[in-house]
């Protein structure tokens, strides 16, 4: 037991070391080009923790990606590389807005109803590619990627011809009625109750994946289809369940984002939180509990970058650069499966047993 904890700690320490080195490698040249290099580092590294408001910004930015990260985690764990999370997020937002604009709901049922509709409609973008794979063996990656754009343009059609407010200046929906909203949690930020839902969802997701029989069976199907068929597990059913669950969560995330932040629906392109969710899932090693820190970490980088862009003469794209470099380093998790590294671990174990 202690040995596996040690191995885990080693892996964590190595990851942290790599991230630190990458941040330094990207930030130091940038800082040196500024009149006050230390200020750049301070703002980026410590800035996001400077005030309650900035910390609220981190939580706000992490809310959608925690949920899409959880959705991607569940889908990947079942062994599918289904990228429908992005499409589900978009559709979920659209469907929640449509519910708010079109249905005469009021009072405390209004918001939950809109989120429910958003989740149901949004899940389509994950279910369709998943079904095509299970039923026909079609590549879920290609299908989900292409369908994301099909759903986007279908959604924009609905926005333009059904929800559009002709009196608004741009392509956007009618105002969402006041009952369709999530309560603000923190003055001065847009942080809303959705963040609580996201936290709880990740915790429940982790309990399901590691603490229940069906979670175990999904992990078995995902990690070894041959073993699953040896055990006689209903592989197709488990695969579809995971796609449906992932789709519902991603759709819900889209609905929460729209109801929590906006007074009108105005997405005419894919919002990108689904893609970030996929990054979060990989960063979290497909563990729902780790999705929370992974999403917070990416949000922290984003807020730090925003602060650089706002206060200094630094292009905001630099954040993208930093994030990309970090992702590259971290997802190169392959290093931990590298034969040389495994040999090292074996040698250490050998010495332990010898002692």
């Amino acid at each position, binding site marked *: *037991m*202690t*040995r*596996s904890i040690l191995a885990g700690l080693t892996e964590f320490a190595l990851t942290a070391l790599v991230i630190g080195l990458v941040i330094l490698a990207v930030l130091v040249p940038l800082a040196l080009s500024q009149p006050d290099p230390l200020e750049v580092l301070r703002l980026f590294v410590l800035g996001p923790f400077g005030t309650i408001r900035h910390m609220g910004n981190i939580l706000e930015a992490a809310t959608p990606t925690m949920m899409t990260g959880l959705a991607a985690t569940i889908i990947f764990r079942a062994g599918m590389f289904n990228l429908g999370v992005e499409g589900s997020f978009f559709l979920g937002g659209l469907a929640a807005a449509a519910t708010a604009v079109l249905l005469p709901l009021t009072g405390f049922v209004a918001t939950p109803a809109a989120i429910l509709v958003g989740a149901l409609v949004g899940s389509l973008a994950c279910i369709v590619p998943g079904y095509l794979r299970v039923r026909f063996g079609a590549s879920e990656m290609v299908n989900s990627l292409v369908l994301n754009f099909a759903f986007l343009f279908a959604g924009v059609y609905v926005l333009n011809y059904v929800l559009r407010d002709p009196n608004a200046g741009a392509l956007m929906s009618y105002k969402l009625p006041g009952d369709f909203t999530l309560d603000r949690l923190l003055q001065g930020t847009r942080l809303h109750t959705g963040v609580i839902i996201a936290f709880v969802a990740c915790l429940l997701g982790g309990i399901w994946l590691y*603490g*229940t*029989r*069906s979670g*175990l*069976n999904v*992990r*078995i199907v995902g*990690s*070894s289809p*041959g*073993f699953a*068929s*040896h*055990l*006689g*597990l*209903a592989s197709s059913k488990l695969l579809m369940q995971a796609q449906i669950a992932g789709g519902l969560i991603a759709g819900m995330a889209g609905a929460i984002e729209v109801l929590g932040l906006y007074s009108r629906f105005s997405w005419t392109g894919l919002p990108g939180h689904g893609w970030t969710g996929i990054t979060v899932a990989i960063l979290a090693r497909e563990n729902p509990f780790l999705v929370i820190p992974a999403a917070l970490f990416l949000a922290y980088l984003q807020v730090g970058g925003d602060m650089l862009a706002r206060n200094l003469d630094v292009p905001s794209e630099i954040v993208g650069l930093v994030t990309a470099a970090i992702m590259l380093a971290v997802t190169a998790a392959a290093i931990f499966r590298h034969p040389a590294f495994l040999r090292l671990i074996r040698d250490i174990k050998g010495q332990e047993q010898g002692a």
Partner: protein
Amino acid sequence: MSNSPHLAEGPIVSFRGVSKTYPNGTVALTDASFDIRRGSIHAICGENGAGKSTLMKILFGLESPSAGQVLIDGAAVDTATPDFAGKHGIGMVHQHFSLVPILTVTENIILGHEPRRSIFIDRSKARRQVVELTQRFDLAVDPDARTDTLSVAAQQKVEILKALSRDTRLLILDEPTAVLSPPEIEELFNRLRDLCAAGMTILFISHKLHEVRALAETVTVLRAGRVVGTTPLAEVDDTTITRMVMGRDVDVPRRQRQRTDAPVVLELDRVSTRSRDPADRIEDISLSIRADEIVGIAGVDGSGQRGLVGVLSGLMHPASGSVRLADADMSRAAAPDWRKAGLAYLPADRYARGGTAALSLADNAIAGTDGDKALQWGPFLRRGAIRKRVQQMIADYAVRAGGTGERLDSLSGGNAQKLIAARELAGSPKLLIADQPTRGVDVAAAALLHGRIDLAARDGAAVLLITADLDELLRLADRVLVLFNGKIVADLQNHAGLTPAALGPYMLGLETAA
């Protein structure tokens, strides 16, 4: 062919003390020495794992020997150099075809050495070359057909043409008859004899002694990585060769069966499967296994073992015949039905089917126990109960592991197999299939697994043991069935006089006693 100017006399290939030890410590070949005479058909015989394929990989330039020399035309050569085979005129037909199914016959044959006109492939020249090749060697195939539309026999012709397409002087065929029907085999042999008459040297690798005898002049027998002998076939009888292949007669301690009158648990009546792959094909198999009986299946790899296991685990369905387990008809039963009916199964492919390498020991140990009230509270798993249960399994089976949270692939092969056995044998199974239960496992673990298999039988399981390890077979089995070409060719009671050498003639298809 323009190879007559070569040294006309002397062996075309000589192996001189060739040894091969892989980096992981596996010794595949030890001090192998023999010659291959120019213009002859030379056979290589040996059991699975005897070192045949390593030898061929060295000769084909895919591996380099760790010690010793390979001489071609009397000169020492470094085999592991790029395009070694092409330079020395060596062509090989692999047991598993290496054709690209969506390409045409012509495209497959020229692949890798396409005739060119500047940067383009000269298609008309390529087609002319292929047509000329088919005529020269009298191997008729449509040069424009897509490869995946061809029969297996025709695909093999394409493989042979591909191997011959580069001024080949030495043609290696690895188990070429495994996928062919008898008339196709006859046709292949005739073509090979013609090739030999035209000056080609042919190296023929086979398990099947009657084929070796029908085709070759000389045979080299390998056993456990060593050359047992090289001899002209005219000078030895089948018994001698069989003894050379199977090894010395050593007696092993045998299992003592408690009851011989226990009820029949598993009954197969004239079961056949249909499949293109001979490993999946069984024909007219009838067998019954009683409780407290271990039936061992012997046979060279690919004789239908996989088909038999497939039918008995619900992964394949018989095309005809009936399967009964404890008086219930299982002919159409799927995998979950078999498990519910009391099947325990130790798959040969431990990591792909027996467990999942990426999950923990605990996850692997409790997989498939859905609905076990002691481990589950509603949908939730009881972590404490699971840890206790798995620790108990680890202790009972002497699994060397750090903790229940470790990944399965952190265990050695023997320890992983012990954990898998602990899971499969929990809850007194009615039928146990043990497929190569101790392959790649250390001696201590093998002894423990043998004890547990014996114990499962005593507890009332019918056991089907499939193994390439004949010592293990004779140690455990009460009755031995030999599979050859998907049929049971021998049904023998295991008694003190039964030796690996006695099984040899059946395994090599020389005799039947069913």
